[in-house]
């Protein structure tokens, strides 16, 4: 009889542990889910500044062609002393996103690798110019 009670108590203890962990995991999951739902309907066309001195959190959408650089003439101004006047170009081709470096001095990096020729981007790719990092959402 005591053995049965001890086994039962043991299972109750483990079940309570499970309930606790499950509660927190579910809360974290719904928290992250809230972040997912905020993304735009058209995937892979939104660019977000994730790391920057002054532009972190800003975003823009690539509908056709967007030139990014340190010049006032660029479509998107890039506040980074390592950036060139016209640094890079995002273009939306057949629903895909393409990135081209416009002969910049310090280069453009995709996921840490310096690019030479135009590259296709997919969701989650990180584009780095100097100290600034942009992410494809």
């Amino acid at each position: 009889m005591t053995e049965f009670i001890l086994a039962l108590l043991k299972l109750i203890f483990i079940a309570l542990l499970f309930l606790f962990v499950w509660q927190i995991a579910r809360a974290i999951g719904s928290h992250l889910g809230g972040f997912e739902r905020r993304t735009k309907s058209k995937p892979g066309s939104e660019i977000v500044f994730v790391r920057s001195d002054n532009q972190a959190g800003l975003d823009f959408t690539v509908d056709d062609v967007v030139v990014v650089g340190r010049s006032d003439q660029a479509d998107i101004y890039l506040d980074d002393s390592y950036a060139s006047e016209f640094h890079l170009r995002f273009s939306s081709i057949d629903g895909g996103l393409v990135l081209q470096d416009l002969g910049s001095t310090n280069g453009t990096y995709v996921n840490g690798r310096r690019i030479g020729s135009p590259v296709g981007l997919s969701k989650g790719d990180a584009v780095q110019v100097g100290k600034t990092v942009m992410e494809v959402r």
Partner: protein
Amino acid sequence: MTRNAEGALILAAALMAAFGVALVNIAGQQPIGADVALTFFVMVTAFGALHAAVRRWAPKGTPYLLPLAALLAAVGLSEIYRLNPEMASLQKWWILIGAGLGILTLWGLSSVGTQILRRYRYIMLLLAMGLLVLPLLPQQWPLPIRGLAVNGSRLWVSLDLGFIEMRFQPGEIVKLLMVAFLASFLAERQAALTMRTRKVGPFEFPEPRQMIPILVAWFASFGVMVYQRDLGASLLLFSAFIAMMYAATGRNTYLVVGGGLFTIGAAAAWSAFAHVQTRLEAWLVPFEHYETTGYQISNGIFALASGSLSGTGLGLGRPSLIAFAPTDFIFAAVGEELGLVGSVLILAMYALIISVGMGIALRSRDLFRKLLAAGLTFTFGLQSLLIIGGIVRLFPLTGITLPFMSYGGSSLVANFVLIALLIRISHEERV
């Protein structure tokens, strides 16, 4: 999840600790009494006060970390009580002291913010170096602060205050200071480290000049740790260094170079230290050295095996057969008494803490805070992984503690401060 839910879960964790201690009492056919109440009281006081401090000084901080830490401490405390009730009462004191230091961290940063750590990075580095060499002080000399040799390693410091002798491992605090220093240093030099590079074959390296201070810091800490025979901690610090370089620059070069340096270091340690060879042997063929060096690992495996699916029940196994069960091998003891289900739940708790910490790092917009959160979470996660992996024979065993569960004052206190820092960072990022 709201702050109130956090409070409720902390209360639940305290009840779980009391329940665990009661189960041990029932299994040992002792009266249920003072220990149950005292455990509940200590858990509620420590984590409740920390919760109140978060409400006061970091109201927007993440609500997930405290309940998870509380539950880990609750399971750890029940198991330590089951192994050695005297150690459990000491552990209760350490939990209270740790929570106190966590509160002090939140209070201290409440007006100045974590940026203060960024500003005083060289003071932190000096402090870390000073703490690192403390255990090398002579064991016999007139000053009340002395080094101690325990189990062949020089990691401990004894502070003799006349009426009480306190012992601590400064290495645990050094870890936090080094991570904060690296985060500050890398945040300052990020642009230079990423942009001004030299190409060597397929790899790009930053200019050597940029690397000098960091290499000095690394060699100094590494050297002292190897000298102190604490290879687990030096591995931890080295990996944190590589991980933070990678997080700051996004360059695979550092992972490749780090892997190479690790291989060289491991080979050197293997040929230079007899105890590394013994460890490796005990890892590969523990049962052939059952009587000697493989004894601890073998008994850990036996404990996990006899735990089976749902365990023997708290207080009903024989985990005291394992050497160092309350400190390094707490996971094996828990695995025996709560079984595979219980151990997987423990792993899930660590995984959740790591994912929350990395989530804070990912969402941080300030580079210093990002690197600090990533570095702290990385050391926490790697430490858990190394010791659990050592027990289940995934890696060779390194004698380090399991955060929040193992018996051990210095480690517990350091982890309380670590969690407080993560909560503070997440608060600052949401203001």
